[in-house]
């Protein structure tokens, strides 16, 4: 999400979009957090002009926004990382075993994304430093394939 200012007299409105997704889940806590005036103010401050939210199965509908999305599951996380986009993962604390947070925390520790909870989201956005993030290398299933073939006695070419 870079800045793109051509500096000409005809002002072009640059669109820096924050895309929030809940995947296939129900995560109203995040929708509410993102919809709050403080967070929207901070996003504007940082130069983000549009907020796109994908709501999944949630029921809370923000007044001004078209779509709401927040990243929750591994599917959403890796799709976004593959696209090379900067990512803030918000963990859903209402889920029982919360194994989601293990993955988000580990990737955050490795600096592939930022991790937050609905309550701390405003702090993460106000301290936003996306340059510190490093890309996640693409996944590779061939090590598994080779071990399976070896076990079954198939030759791997």
């Amino acid at each position: 999400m870079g800045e793109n200012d051509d500096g000409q007299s005809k002002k072009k409105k640059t669109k820096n979009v924050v895309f929030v997704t809940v995947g296939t889940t129900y995560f109203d806590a995040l929708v509410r957090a993102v919809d709050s005036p403080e967070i929207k103010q901070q996003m504007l401050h940082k130069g983000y002009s549009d907020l796109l939210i994908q709501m999944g199965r949630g029921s809370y509908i923000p007044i001004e926004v078209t779509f709401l999305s927040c990243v929750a599951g591994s599917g959403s996380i890796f799709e976004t990382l593959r696209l090379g986009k900067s990512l803030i993962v918000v963990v859903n604390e209402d889920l029982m075993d919360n194994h989601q947070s293990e993955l988000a925390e580990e990737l955050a520790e490795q600096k592939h994304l930022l991790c937050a909870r609905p309550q701390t989201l405003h702090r993460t956005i106000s301290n936003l430093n996306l340059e510190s993030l490093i890309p996640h290398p693409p996944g590779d299933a061939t090590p598994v394939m080779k071990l399976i073939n070896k076990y079954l006695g198939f030759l791997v070419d």
Partner: protein
Amino acid sequence: MMMVFTFAITLTVVVFTVIVTRIIYVMRKSSKPLSKIGSQSVSTLIVLGSGGHTAEMLNLVAVLQKDKFTPRIYIAASTDNMSLQKASALEASLVDERDDGMISKDAQFMQIYRSREVGQSYLTSIWTTLIAIIHALWLMIKIRPQVILCNGPGTCVPLCLTTFFFKVVGIRWSSIFYVESIARVRRLSLSGLLLYKLRIADQFFVQWPQLQREYPRTHYVGCLM
């Protein structure tokens, strides 16, 4: 009267010992590679689960040699709408690679009753798990795959338990390959823990080194996604 009683006891002990010995033999033999040189192809059961599970599993299926792992039977929970669609999309994309028109009969799609829905009470889960096990038995008798690929959804447990049972009683010797989901970084899932501890999975793969250190019989294979 005493003789009948003694005989009954002796018989019970003998049968019990035979069963336990057989189970230990199966567990020990399972962890070693197949001794026969691999056959031309192996029938493969691919267990799909909701959300990230299916995506990861299809990532693995995509890199398998399709002529070695065939026919491919995809199985998903009856309440899972997306997984079989994604699997058939993958299979359809393979049709373009080979133009001998044989792909369609290589792939089959089936559904199984789920042992437990997310949030279901553990009490009713006992009953639904029993139903799932019976359904698994029924499906496995029909399919009898040589290879099973699974990565953690609850649907795989009844199928793997049935497979293990078939191995013990000699109906079919299958190899179970379990890939723990990428979302499991520090702890194994419940399905994974079960299949690891009971040595039901022949090979157990993990995507994070922390898990390999914690569970030494696993193989660390890096991220699939």
